């Protein structure tokens, strides 16, 4: 049969199934293949906190969304064009997001009475007509997979596990993806289980050929290569980027890297990655708890290493007393907080930006800490590097903020060559003449002395220190001097920060301010508005404490300021407090990133532009 080929600018696909169905794997293989193929892309993994939630349940549904494009793409897409639903629960949970008229590829074998009941369906949606508005392709994916692998002698369970590759194969055909990247990956991944490797490859091919031969698929979509800047690329997630960024900081500063960490979702991958970098001399230490992890990192910093600790919100809460200790002892330290839904245990696997205030002001006493935030997965590399640079130059702890969306999401990254990564020097004091532990340099940083240096024996600690001399001091005026010095040291960092660049007109009616992972959705929204002839201005803050110097001036040039953020208005609060500027807050706390259309709708509302029929959530 002749098949139509349709060229698309971009496409959004969501894989959904049980948490044991291998949907994250299918999604990440699609991602890798598309990246190597040359698309620009952005991904959004969305999975439950339970490792293997009971099969078939709504809360056990795991999803992975990816947008591929032949143009620049900033977000994983608002609405999927295609939904792969491996069971009724996956359909139920994800259908509301699917584009009207979108395609559903459903595993009909899983739509049995038990699963339908678990998902709360009275009758089978695949044949009761409720999906009429969509392009429904119901296939016996389980049976076909079993059939494809039957000659390899796998047991029923093993055979059934291959069905994600069968489904993936179908999507590869639909979107004209090459199979090689995934084939190679399977071979490497299942090197020790050649039978399983063979089965997965067979399933992938079977799915692909099914697409080609079956008459159900009438159209094949082509998303061409994106015109990316010249260079060598790789696909990278935020956590990978953060791990490599801190390693790069260690190598470019010549400081040994020490990571103290305690496993916590969604930050654990940073610990995993760095644990595998042992031949770089990286020392990783899985501590007994979050507090031990940061205290060990402080101990390592005292010893002359680049001390680093990685965590997520609840872990940062536990670490805060120790962050204060690093403030007081004025030791360099990088704290990575991969934010998740809170408070308390909250939504461990979902994203949120509600730790901004915790990072900026969440400690006892006047405890200033520089805070930086990454905008995209790859930006984690640059911003954690920047965190380390600031920490060492100013002898201070620095908090690096990422979030679950950035940590697990991925994008193509133009890889920098090592000689393009700036070098910076860590200075250690060795001269005992006129040495005082709290004597400051031009950046107000105190000297860093490695124990083992003769003649410079000294004591530091959490008690207030006498200015310059560093002995314990309870003197009232000294305390105020020291509090002010510590504050000044951090606020002075803004002197050297790059100025904020405005995307759009440099003055006007509306400025949208983003920070962290809202970058993609806001940028996409701005592009869409432009297409409609609505010009807004946009800035994105990577430095949250201190703010860049020209922020004050920029704020003055706009009538209205809109801040979308995944919290109830924390950046809005900081900006209002610091600049006495009224701002409009667009909060979202659903454990999910913003959709561009939500921001588009809010901008129109703020600008009093009549809404077209768009639904605002």
């Amino acid at each position: 049969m002749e098949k139509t080929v349709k060229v698309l600018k971009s496409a959004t696909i969501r894989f959904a199934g049980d948490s044991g169905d291998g949907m994250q794997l299918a999604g990440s293989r699609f991602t890798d293949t598309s990246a190597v193929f040359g698309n620009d892309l952005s991904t959004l993994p969305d999975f439950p906190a339970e490792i293997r939630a009971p099969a078939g349940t709504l809360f056990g549904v795991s999803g992975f969304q990816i947008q591929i494009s032949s143009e620049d793409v900033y977000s994983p897409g608002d609405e999927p064009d295609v939904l792969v639903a491996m069971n009724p629960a996956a359909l139920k949970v994800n259908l509301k997001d699917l584009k009207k008229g979108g395609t559903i590829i459903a595993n009909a074998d899983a739509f049995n009475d038990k699963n339908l009941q678990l998902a709360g369906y009275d009758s089978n949606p695949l044949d009761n007509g409720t999906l009429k508005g969509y392009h429904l392709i119901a296939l016996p994916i389980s049976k076909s997979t079993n059939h494809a692998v039957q000659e390899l002698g796998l047991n029923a369970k093993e055979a059934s596990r291959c069905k994600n590759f069968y489904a993936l194969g179908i999507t590869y055909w639909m979107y004209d993806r090459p199979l090689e990247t995934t084939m190679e990956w399977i071979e490497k991944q299942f090197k020790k289980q050649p039978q399983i490797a063979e089965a997965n490859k067979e399933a992938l091919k079977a799915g692909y050929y099914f697409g080609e031969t079956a008459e159900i698929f009438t159209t094949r979509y082509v998303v061409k290569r994106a015109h990316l800047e010249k260079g060598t690329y790789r696909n990278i997630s935020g956590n990978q980027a953060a791990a490599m960024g801190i390693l790069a900081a260690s190598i470019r500063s010549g400081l040994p890297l020490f990571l103290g960490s305690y496993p916590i979702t969604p930050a654990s991958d940073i610990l995993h990655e760095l644990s595998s970098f042992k031949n770089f001399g990286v020392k990783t230490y899985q501590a007994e708890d979050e507090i031990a992890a940061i205290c060990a990192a402080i101990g390592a910093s005292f010893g002359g290493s680049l001390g680093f600790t990685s965590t997520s919100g609840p872990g940062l809460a536990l670490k805060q007393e120790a962050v204060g200790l690093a403030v007081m002892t004025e030791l360099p330290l990088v704290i990575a907080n991969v934010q998740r839904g809170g408070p308390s245990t909250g939504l461990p696997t979902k994203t949120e930006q509600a730790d901004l205030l915790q990072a900026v002001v969440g400690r006892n006493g006047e405890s200033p800490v520089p805070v930086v935030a990454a905008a995209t997965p790859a930006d984690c590399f640059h911003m954690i590097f920047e965190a380390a640079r600031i920490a060492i130059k100013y002898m201070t702890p620095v908090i690096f903020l990422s979030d679950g969306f950035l940590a697990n999401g991925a994008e193509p990254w133009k890889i920098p060559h090592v000689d393009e990564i700036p070098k910076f020097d860590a200075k250690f004091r060795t001269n005992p003449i006129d040495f005082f532990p709290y004597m400051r340099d031009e950046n107000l940083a105190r000297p860093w002395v490695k124990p083992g240096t003769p003649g410079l024996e000294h004591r530091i600690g959490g008690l207030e220190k006498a200015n310059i001399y560093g002995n314990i001091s309870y003197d009232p005026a000294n305390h105020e001097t020291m509090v002010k010095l510590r504050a000044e040291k951090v606020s002075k960092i803004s002197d050297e920060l790059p100025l904020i660049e405005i995307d759009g007109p440099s003055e006007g009616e509306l400025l949208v301010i983003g920070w962290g992972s809202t970058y993609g959705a806001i940028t996409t929204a701005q592009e869409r508005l432009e297409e409609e002839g609505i010009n807004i201005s946009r800035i994105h803050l990577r430095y949250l404490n201190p703010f860049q110097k020209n922020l004050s001036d920029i704020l003055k040039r706009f009538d209205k300021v809109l801040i979308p953020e995944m919290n109830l208005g924390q950046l809005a609060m900081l900006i209002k407090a610091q600049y006495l500027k009224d701002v409009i807050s667009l909060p979202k706390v659903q454990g999910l990133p913003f959709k561009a259309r939500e921001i588009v709708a809010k901008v129109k509302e703020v600008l009093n532009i009549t809404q077209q029929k768009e639904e605002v959530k």
Partner: protein
Amino acid sequence: MAKEKSLMPVNLTSKDFATDQDVRWCPGCGDYSILAQVQRVMPSLDVPKENLVFVAGIGCSSRFPYYMNTYGFHGIHGRAPAIATGLKIARPDLDIWVAAGDGDLLSIGGNHFIHTLRRNLDIVILLFNNRIYGLTKGQYSPTSEHGKITKSSPMGTIDHPFHPITVALGSAGTFVARTMDRDPKHMQSIITRAHAHRGTSFIEIFQNCNIYNDGAWDRFTEKDTRPESVIYLEHGKPLVFGEKNNKGIKLDGFKAEIVSLDDGKYSINDLLVHDETSRELAFILSEFMEKPGFPVPLGVFFKQNKSCYETELTEQIEHVTEKLGKGDLEKLLFSGSTWTVE
């Protein structure tokens, strides 16, 4: 040059380890004795002063680093073992000591204490056990005896205490010892042995808080009652105690009993012989505190050679580096699936 330097005697005296800071413990505090013994032992350890680091948490005893003219870190409550762990992993060349009180090490820092012991980093932990919270002015601690009346337990504590030695043994500690502030010579010898041990060396020191818990250890520390109340442990020697060295400990199965050497029924050959290498025996000895009429053991309960965390980590790094070659950042960045846009 370097070789010559390392052969040069350090030639320090205890005075070289005193700082210019006034010691601010209450007059009569047992901490003074501990500071004096540590300073006295230091020169004999032959460690360059700049390689010594004292780490502490919070509490009276945790001011210790300020009084040692070495490198020092006064941390936050309970976290000294964690800070020391990071420092030791980063800098295995340093000689690291932790000074902590019973509230600091066993209550708020209990988690770090047990995990540091099992990891067996090569450091020394000095526990200043006075069975009370001193710096916060007199609340009961995890080692306070049941029923103790304190500011926070006006009707007597209903907490059961635990014994630091038992906790240390149960946490896979590799050097577990006890001494007391009123026996300087013994303390010096135990500190010296602890320092010589490769691994985490834990010393419980009976220390008197003369303000909030005066006389807590009197029965064991005062000259007139001491001989009947304590028993000095020595590896390979029978367990004898008493004013006239006329009593001993005999083991009947797992049960220890006190026997007299006077009535002709038992001789010294019937007594339990101390074996530092037996954790089982150490557990039995650690329970003497709970047994009315039994002498409290002082000395080294247990000592075991086991690999140290920081050594194994260094070996792993060396092994992987040998296998894979020294890490190359450029290679790492460009690893995995990459593609080039021309």
